[in-house]
């Protein structure tokens, strides 16, 4: 009887969801560092939450990964902090508790913290490292280990305070895989991956969000370390090898974002200034302005992502957000019917461009297949253009539960 009652209570407060997805990528061209044409990835994601009391809930999310290309580690280690250079086979994406009382909400543990209002680029989204390991143009997000407190001063004003005591980096492409492009003059030289030097100390951030009459905006500030790395290199002439190590520069950021729904379209904008005391680090401002519009079953979004570079630093860097800036970006999605959709996304800048087209269809209540192509063009000295040998066709098959 007690067991049955307990099961009933658990069932009422327990939520779960997840999916099993197989992604197959076909690259027509080989890359200098990667001769493979076919990559297959399998991901099992499980998310669960349990509401212990009206004021307390716990959340967990776990990934199990495998691939054909050895970008995913092949061991039984469970990753908790996202610091692995390879993508771990097993990882705890999220493990956190949310406490809520009155106008105060606190989340403690590994969690996802997303800031910003725009969709095509989010300069202020500074607590959201990404996994660029196997696809730079379509990364996944990583959680951070942090304590976050949100105070809703009024129904229209909230203050977000974040303390991140343990650094989580963005996961960069492996040095011997196709999404790392070695300059032509360095090809043939051996590369030794020394891993990463992670910063100590904490990251702090604050964001004030205000919802006004027909608009909303946020002001945000961050003090800590950039989750995107710079690289230090040491050339060993005798061995004809270069040793590469990632390090993460100190970062201070101030930013703002806004959204204004109008009668004909919705305007969204975001801007941030990035400064650093770490030598050889870029100092710059990123900004985005985008317009959205819904027309029957079509939704359109387009805008410009810009950059103002005030100080150029170490060219050995992996900075996709700067790399995608100075671009005209647009997307369109068509909901053909409840089962089928078509989407296209494009980014065009002076030296390069990419276009992604996806067709997606569901089968029954659980299955979805998504077929896509990504076409990347440009010059080798452009962040997008350097991936011009990485145009691909993809097929994703997902079973959701």
């Amino acid at each position, binding site marked *: 009887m007690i067991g049955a009652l307990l099961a009933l209570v658990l069932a009422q407060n327990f939520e779960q*969801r997840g*999916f099993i997805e197989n992604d197959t990528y076909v690259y027509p061209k080989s890359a200098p560092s990667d001769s493979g044409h076919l990559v297959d990835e399998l991901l099992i994601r499980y*998310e669960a939450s349990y509401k212990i009391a009206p004021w307390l809930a716990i959340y967990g999310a776990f990934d199990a990964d495998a691939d054909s290309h050895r970008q995913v580690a092949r061991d039984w280690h469970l990753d908790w902090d996202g610091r692995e250079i390879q993508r771990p086979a097993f990882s705890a994406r999220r493990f956190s508790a*949310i406490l*809520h009382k*009155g*106008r105060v*909400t606190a989340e403690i543990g590994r969690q*996802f913290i*997303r*800031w*910003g*209002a725009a*969709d095509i680029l989010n300069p202020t989204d500074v607590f*959201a490292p990404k996994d660029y390991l196997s696809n730079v143009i379509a990364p996944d*997000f990583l959680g951070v280990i942090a304590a976050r407190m*949100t105070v*809703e001063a009024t*129904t229209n004003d*909230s203050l977000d305070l974040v303390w991140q005591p343990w650094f989580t980096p963005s996961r960069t492409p492996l040095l011997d895989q196709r999404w790392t492009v070695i300059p032509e003059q360095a090809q043939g030289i051996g590369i030794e991956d020394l891993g990463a030097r992670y910063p100590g100390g904490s990251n702090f951030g604050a964001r004030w*969000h205000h*919802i006004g*009459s*027909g608009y*909303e905006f946020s002001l945000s500030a961050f003090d800590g370390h950039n989750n995107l790395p710079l690289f230090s290199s040491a050339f060993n002439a005798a061995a004809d090898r270069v040793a590469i190590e990632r390090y993460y520069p100190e970062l201070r950021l101030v930013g703002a974002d806004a*959204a204004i*729904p*109008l*009668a*004909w*379209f*919705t305007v*969204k904008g975001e801007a941030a200034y990035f400064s650093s005391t770490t030598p050889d680090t870029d100092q710059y401002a990123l900004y985005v302005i985008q317009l*959205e*519009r*819904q*027309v*029957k*079953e079509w939704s359109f979004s387009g805008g410009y992502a810009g950059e103002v570079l005030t100080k150029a630093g170490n060219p050995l860097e992996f900075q996709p957000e700067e790399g995608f800036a100075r671009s005209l970006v647009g997307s369109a999605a068509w*909901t053909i*019917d*409840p*089962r089928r959709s078509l989407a296209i996304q494009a980014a065009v800048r002076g030296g390069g461009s990419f276009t992604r087209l996806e067709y997606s269809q*569901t089968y029954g*209540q*659980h299955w*979805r297949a998504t077929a896509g192509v990504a076409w990347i063009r440009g010059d080798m000295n452009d962040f997008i253009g350097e991936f011009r040998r990485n145009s691909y066709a993809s097929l994703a098959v*997902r079973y*959701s*539960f």
Partner: protein
Amino acid sequence: MSRLRLPSRSRDGTPTTAGLWMERVFDMTARGLAFLLIFAAAARAQDPRQIIQEVQKRTYSDSQRYEGTLQVIGHENRVATKRWVFERIGSFGASKAILRFTAPPEVKGVALLIINHPDKASDQWMWRPEIGREQRIALQDRSTRFFGTDFSFEDLEERDVDQFYYKLLGEENGQWKIESRPRKSSQYTYQYLWVKKDNYTITKVEAYNKKGLARVIEYRDFELDHNIWTARTTEVLDVARKSRTILKFDKLEYDVPLKSDDFTVDALRRES
């Protein structure tokens, strides 16, 4: 447990705005869907405007909760199903609502927050678990189909009495037949409404555009709950697409104890 009472809407049929569509979408479904399902017996006068005005007064509730199911049946008889939980606090024009999808599995966790204002368009946010943040949304085209179904967002709006011209065309099988023509921009040029004389519920709507009959909406399975006649089943036929959608809702509750603090952008994140 004390029941929270929010300021009620005006009972004199205060005009609402087109921007209230999203709240109305779900609110209406629970009230019998689409507009004006319950008519007051007091509204004996055969002036359609007065009848509709009376309906607005009689459909008032402090809050509401239900579980909805949508089935879209395409012309090839393929069925797509979506389910959600809907909660609303406050009433038309000043309400707050959250809709959380529970099925199919791939949309489970997607949620919508709608904050309505009496004098301007509503504010809306969508929570998408896959990106882990809310997105401000605004629908500029009310003829857009609702989540790929055969309802357009305009079909699901609650019409304010002052947004239409009405004309009583006559009586058919114990029902009034009323013509309504929009005063402002609409995908439809006119609509016919059938209103039962015995319980003042709308049972059918035919919506016409410039090309002719566009949609037929039928309301069935009425139940009286908290003195509000509510259609538990609504079916819409898209004439051009030959596709139909059936909307049902269960576990309907009116005047449930909900808190205003649970209808904020932060609550959308917290509870999703």
